[in-house]
């Protein structure tokens, strides 16, 4: 590693691996280091041994759980939507070829003590059991408005400037009641709390449109939810981008401690020391765990991984997302539950993996905060609860050439990850990230 590079990347989380791949393709000489002996950092998918190492102090794995390598348990539960930005990155980099996506069977929302299927189309909305809460005609008008809205065509704006108008005013415009607002803001736009209502409406209308488009494409293939998921776990996403980087001559060193970020007296980055070796580079990109003094804490996320011997009661599906909106459970933030199974190849047959996540609101026992979700999930064979701090960088890195990513937040999709990738790319290169088909396909068909 005693060499000179253009960029050193620390941590093999998804954000870091996407940047590694893109920069290597652009011809940058990349050295990519992780202190762990596995890929993915905080967004790895772990096998049982790794899971027990991390959460149970390396206690022996109960034999009845089955084979180690049949498990790919995501540390951070998320699903993708077919219309989201990360999909474009997968397509344009060809990393998609390493992955096989499957549909998530159902998307549900918790309402008055029960769970209901989220209607994913206007038609489905009118026949759904949620229909009582859903103001049919207005909702249909709103959906048409979203799908026809074009930024540059004021005729499609119905007099609403989404960049300036608050979502509250848009709700007023369509005469939506509290229930419908909850449905749009939480089940479609996937906001975690109600702060969005006073923010510009575009921040809600854009994700709601993404949801509708994804749902429409899901309907084309008879899928019951707009969500998709890569077989063998989300950990394959960073692995795929790492391979892309390696194909373009990126050097990977796992299981390598980072002992020092070497800087000049004015704070400018010069290299990374591991043991008695120093790798030099112009720039460094890394996750917050490599720069503890240069990040600030913005919140805490509770996550609970549950191994089940049966699906979540009343879902009747191999996979599901369940949203528990804050208003329904007397909290400020929603609770998300994801459930996966053998069908997504993340556990053996006869097991289901449910993950519960929410933003922590108290300093108390995390299990108490998610008690309603635990009740919904039903009997649990093994549970692993953790509380993670969420960090953001103190500086943008343009002075020091130290570029730090954000922690993975509590949202259930990848938009914030993708935004961080775009933001970091701009800070690192000075250019906007433009996705183009790779000019030369390095992995050729013979």
């Amino acid at each position: 590693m005693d060499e000179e590079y253009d960029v050193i990347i620390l941590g093999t989380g998804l954000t870091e691996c996407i940047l590694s791949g893109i920069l290597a393709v652009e011809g940058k000489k990349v050295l990519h280091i992780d202190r762990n002996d596995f890929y993915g950092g905080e967004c790895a998918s772990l096998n049982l041994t790794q899971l027990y190492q991390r959460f149970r102090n390396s206690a022996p794995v109960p034999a009845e759980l089955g084979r180690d390598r049949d498990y790919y348990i995501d540390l951070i539960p998320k699903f993708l939507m077919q219309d989201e930005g990360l999909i474009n990155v997968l397509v344009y980099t060809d990393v998609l070829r390493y992955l096989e996506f499957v549909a998530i069977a159902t998307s549900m929302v918790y309402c008055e003590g029960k769970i209901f299927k989220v209607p994913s189309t206007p038609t489905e909305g009118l026949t759904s059991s949620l229909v009582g809460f859903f103001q049919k005609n207005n909702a249909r008008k709103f959906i048409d408005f979203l799908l026809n809205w074009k930024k540059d065509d004021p005729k499609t704006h119905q007099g609403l400037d989404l960049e300036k108008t608050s979502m509250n005013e848009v709700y007023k415009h369509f005469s939506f009641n509290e229930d419908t607002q909850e449905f749009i803001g939480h089940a479609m736009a996937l906001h975690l709390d109600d702060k969005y209502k006073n923010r510009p409406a575009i921040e809600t209308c854009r994700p709601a449109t993404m949801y509708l488009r994804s749902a429409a494409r899901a309907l084309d293939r008879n899928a019951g939810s707009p969500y998709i998921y890569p077989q063998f776990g989300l950990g394959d996403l960073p692995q795929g981008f790492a391979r892309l980087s390696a194909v373009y001559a990126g050097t990977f060193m796992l299981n390598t401690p980072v002992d020092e970020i070497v800087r000049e007296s004015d704070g400018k980055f010069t290299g990374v020391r591991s043991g008695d070796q120093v790798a030099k580079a112009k720039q460094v990109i890394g996750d917050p765990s490599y720069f503890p003094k240069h990040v600030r804490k913005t919140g805490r996320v509770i996550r609970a991984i549950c191994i089940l011997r049966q699906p979540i009661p009343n879902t009747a599906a191999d996979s599901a997302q369940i949203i528990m909106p804050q208003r329904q459970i007397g909290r400020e933030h929603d609770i998300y539950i994801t459930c996966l199974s053998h069908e997504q190849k993340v556990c053996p047959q006869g097991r289901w993996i449910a993950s519960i996540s929410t933003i922590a609101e108290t300093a108390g026992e995390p299990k108490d905060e998610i008690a309603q979700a635990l009740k919904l999930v039903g009997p649990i064979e093994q549970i692993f609860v953790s509380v993670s701090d969420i960090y953001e960088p103190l500086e943008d890195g343009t002075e020091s050439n130290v570029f730090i990513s954000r922690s993975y937040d509590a949202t259930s999709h990848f938009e914030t990850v993708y935004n961080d990738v775009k933001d970091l790319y701009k800070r690192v290169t000075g250019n906007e990230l433009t996705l183009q088909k790779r000019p030369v396909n390095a992995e050729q068909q013979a």
Partner: protein
Amino acid sequence: MSSSQSPETVASRSGAKPKTFTFKVVLLGESAVGKSSLVTRFARNQFDQYKESTIGAAFVTKEVPLDSNAIANLHIWDTAGQERYKSLAPMYYRNAAAAIVVYDITQAESFGKAKSWVQELKRQAGSAIVIALAGNKTDLSNRRTVSREEGSSYAESLGLLFFETSAQSGENVEELFSELAKKIPRSAEPARNSGPPAVNIAPSANSNNKNAQGDCAC
């Protein structure tokens, strides 16, 4: 070097369309033993003596006739250099039906490394994987430090296929891949009908079409 048959030839002989089996094959072995060169020789019948490493042949596909009515479509994955610091991802091994572990007959150390790759394979990929051991660079046999017997008796003790090859001259390269393909159980092809159907996110990009365009509006 022309023992490979096109699918059309096979088809016309048997009068029926041959069945195609798709198998993933991974290469392993220390850096600079000639993994990529073996693939390039096999897939494109080329050899570049001065090629330093990786960029180029990290993933190729090639068809190999199995018998008069079956063809193996080999998806061959190269390490892309990730073996250098033991940084291969689990994704690399997953669903591999076969592996070729390569060493350099002029570098005894690379033979030792090959043995540990075989252990790693059994751990990561399970016992069903078909493994071939390839002692490469027979064109440099005047500098040989690993005898043919050492290689073959180790391979025999573990039930591995064994070939001594030269990516430079082409010796045994065709045979290596073709014998390996024949030894893979046809049931090793990943089942297509189990589980939910794959979601085709971007058909054009997936099929390597140059006109790939995301139809996402964002």
